[in-house]
């Protein structure tokens, strides 16, 4: 029974988060809508009657569905597969599954073209080109490779928090086969996580820009985001600007249609009250040679998806010019020395600082939202935050510029606001998934047993949440560090981020330079990711789990 003061606390929490959402999301988007309303009225039918638009919308929707139906089952399969103890190098695979996310999207897209296109790596080395890598199939493949880690992560968190090993064991003991257990016990329990992963995958594909731009545009394959970019690029007349904003709001409308019903369905299902299981992901007893097959499958996925493209990228980076054969005799580090200078270093420091602050604030904001989500107002806010994720970076940046540029235009503060608005959902979704393992009874039990409120939160809530919090922080940090679109629109004197410098240099038109910068950018991602991953592992290690176990038992009593 919540006390009156708890209700008051929740209400002021809703109010505080509501104000932040209003400032970061609602006001800027309303300003955009106002621009379309005042400047575009009378031209809107022109915008919507364009045949190219219908094609772009159809392409975008088809792509989002095609990526989701493949990436979600794949991610779930990987998460389930990695529960088996007989997978050789299981811990290593858990880390390397995240590699595709650590590679910035435009680098991934670009290196795929270097690897598989005509005259690419596989063509020169094995005579095996894949010409359709430029076009819808390539865009789809790279988006799947890029999305699987996220769907894997969400399903794995779901497995750790929702799967009931006792139920599975009971089913096995009662004679159910592995398939039946999966179908009747594990998957139904995972349904909310899988649904959340599907929404995220769908929405992320809708808003993806770099990959369709790098791999689709050259082949004449357009999506809504690339059309927006083209509208902004071609001609400086005000109408094409209004057209671009209109398309962005259309994307928001599509997202609303998808996200709101799912959130309504998901909301109650996220509020499962059950005993916390601090033991982490349940382990499935190995049978047969399955483990080795799983490892082989993961290896193939990483090889084709990340390793070969990155090798091709490095090869391009050390080759002095296009068309020169990439044999060791021709290798050079000139491209690297050309891009490492004091400007890159300054920008790197700035980016790291910005990403650090953004990730920290985002983890707090995401946590607040996840806690509030158990109420109706909180769920509405969570939907709003997810919708912001789909606003194309260029549009969100312009919205913030219009809303606040007067006062903080060209400063790091404005870029920070953009990161917070855009990435909030990234922080919120993983924490929200993990919060399930905290039935409200536990906190009350801790309080009843004499723990102070701070101690109760620290020992009961933070411990089991820690992996999710670190994961949310990490995703936000990495994404903020290689954010390109918004920072390149919002930067001013002395606030160039690393991605801006990279983009500016990449425009010099030298393939080798672009490749060298991409290699550096990817390395920069790995530096913070590794310690963070070790931290997550440490937090999940059995010793610490045992530490928390008494609390779990406490809740049985309460």
């Amino acid at each position, binding site marked *: 029974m919540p006390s009156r003061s708890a209700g008051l606390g929740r209400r002021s929490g809703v109010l505080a988060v509501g104000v932040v959402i209003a400032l970061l999301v609602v006001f800027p988007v309303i300003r955009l809508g106002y621009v379309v309303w005042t400047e575009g009225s009378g031209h809107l039918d022109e915008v919507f009657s364009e045949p190219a638009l219908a*094609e772009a919308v159809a392409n975008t929707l088809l792509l989002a569905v095609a990526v989701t139906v493949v990436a979600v089952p794949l991610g779930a399969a990987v998460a389930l597969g990695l529960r088996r103890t007989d997978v050789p190098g299981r811990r290593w695979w858990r880390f390397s599954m995240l590699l595709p996310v650590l590679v910035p999207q435009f680098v991934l897209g670009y290196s795929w073209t270097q690897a598989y296109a*005509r005259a690419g790596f596989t063509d020169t080395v094995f005579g095996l080109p894949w010409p359709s890598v430029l076009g819808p199939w390539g865009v789809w493949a790279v988006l799947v490779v890029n999305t699987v880690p996220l769907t894997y992560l969400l399903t794995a968190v779901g497995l750790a928090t929702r799967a009931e090993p006792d139920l599975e064991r009971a089913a096995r003991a009662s004679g159910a086969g592995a398939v039946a257990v999966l179908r009747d016990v594990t998957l139904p329990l995972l349904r909310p996580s899988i649904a959340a992963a599907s929404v995220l995958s769908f929405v992320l594909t809708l808003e993806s820009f770099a990959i369709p731009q790098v791999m689709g545009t050259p082949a004449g394959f357009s999506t809504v985001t690339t059309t927006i970019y083209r509208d902004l690029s071609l001609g400086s007349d005000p109408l094409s600007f209004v057209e671009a904003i209109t398309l962005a709001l259309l994307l928001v409308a599509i997202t609303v249609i998808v996200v709101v019903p799912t959130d309504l369905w998901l909301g109650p299902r996220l509020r499962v009250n059950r005993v916390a299981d601090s033991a982490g992901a349940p382990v499935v007893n190995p049978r047969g040679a399955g483990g080795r097959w799983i490892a082989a499958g993961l290896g193939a996925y990483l090889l084709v998806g990340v390793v070969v493209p990155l090798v091709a990228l490095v090869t391009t980076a050390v080759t002095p010019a*296009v068309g020169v054969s990439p044999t060791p005799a021709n290798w050079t580090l000139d491209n690297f020395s050309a891009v490492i200078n*004091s400007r890159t270093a300054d920008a790197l420091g700035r980016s790291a600082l910005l990403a650090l602050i953004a990730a920290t604030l985002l983890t707090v904001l995401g946590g607040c939202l996840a806690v509030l989500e158990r109420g109706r107002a909180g769920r509405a806010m969570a939907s709003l935050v997810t919708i912001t994720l789909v606003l194309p970076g260029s549009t969100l940046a312009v919205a913030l510029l219009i809303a606040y540029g007067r006062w*903080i235009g060209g400063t790091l503060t404005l870029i920070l606001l953009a990161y917070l608005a855009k990435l909030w959902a990234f922080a919120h979704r993983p924490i929200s998934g993990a919060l399930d393992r905290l039935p409200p009874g536990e906190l009350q039990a801790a309080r009843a047993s004499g723990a102070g409120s701070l101690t109760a939160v620290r020992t009961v809530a933070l411990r089991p949440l820690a992996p999710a919090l670190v994961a949310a922080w990490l995703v936000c940090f990495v994404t903020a560090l290689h954010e390109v679109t918004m920072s390149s629109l919002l930067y001013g*004197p002395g606030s160039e981020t690393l991605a801006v410098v990279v983009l500016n240099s990449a425009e010099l*038109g030298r393939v080798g330079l672009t490749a060298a910068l991409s290699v550096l950018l990817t390395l920069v991602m790995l530096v913070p990711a590794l310690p963070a991953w070790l931290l997550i592992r440490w937090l999940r290690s059995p010793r610490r789990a045992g530490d928390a176990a008494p609390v779990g038992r406490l809740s049985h009593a309460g």
Partner: protein
Amino acid sequence: MKAVTRAWLSRGRLALLLPLALLPLACDSSAGSGSDADSITLYTCVSDESVQPIIEQFEADSGAEVNLFRAPTGDLNARIAGDLRSGGLKADVVWACDPLTMQGYVDQDLVGGWTPDNATDIPKQFRTEDYVGVAVLYVVGIYRNGEPPPTSWSDLTGPDYNSVALPDPTVAASALGALGWFDQNPEYGLDFYATLQENGAEQVSTPDDVVTGVAQGVYQAGITIANSAYLAKDAGSPIGVVWPEPGAVAVYGPIALANDSADSTVAQDFITYVVSESGQQVLGEAGSYPTLPGVEGPEVPADAPVVYPDWPTITEDKDALLADYQKIFGG
């Protein structure tokens, strides 16, 4: 690499003090407005490599400060659109990459109405009353080593070439300029593109992509910009560069004064400097083709023929022209 590591460390330590770290952000916001009389803000799409040396030289000579926002044309348009709806254009000087974009700014009353006195030194085809061209992109032909070098544009439609790459005019303004010139020239017209397409030519995205494709041997020849072609060739790519008859298509990048900064002497001085002989020399050494006659830029063959598209006509016909073009080369 050492510099990078050192910067990492020092920044990293700063970042540990999170609350303190927020302070510099707040300070930044007061410093960014650039109200200083001796500082101007430049918006440009010209490459970093070309624009940085000229800013450095101007700052050293004049003691003034130039704040730079550099982005591709699309981002530049978006930034300006955002500026306009939050208190007005923040730039004092705009340096665009093609006359079409600049004319758009003039039509919105953002820039123009003033050119420096020394603008008359620049050839007439590179300037209007509102802006003056300070750099040129030349649309040229390239061929893979071993293929016959085309001597005129019409050679590309001949039997020697069944795989030609050309840049997308909805992506690159230089390609749009070339499209405009071919369309305006009765000997070529859009039939030129139709024949190319029938012979197996392919449209790629940017002029750089053309160079990459030809250098890799995916295409025999291509239409691209001279800077990009010579950069690749000089670095060792197996390609040749030609300035086909009747001429390489010149697309100039104009500079203009913002209307709101009409009184700024620093802004005017900066434009005057970029147009001047010393400014043009710096630009030429940085790898751009200057517009001032007699100033050396990157490689130009002796007696290389050059043609000039009629920009006012292109500005007017743009939508219809692109629509007709896209009937030939898809969308």
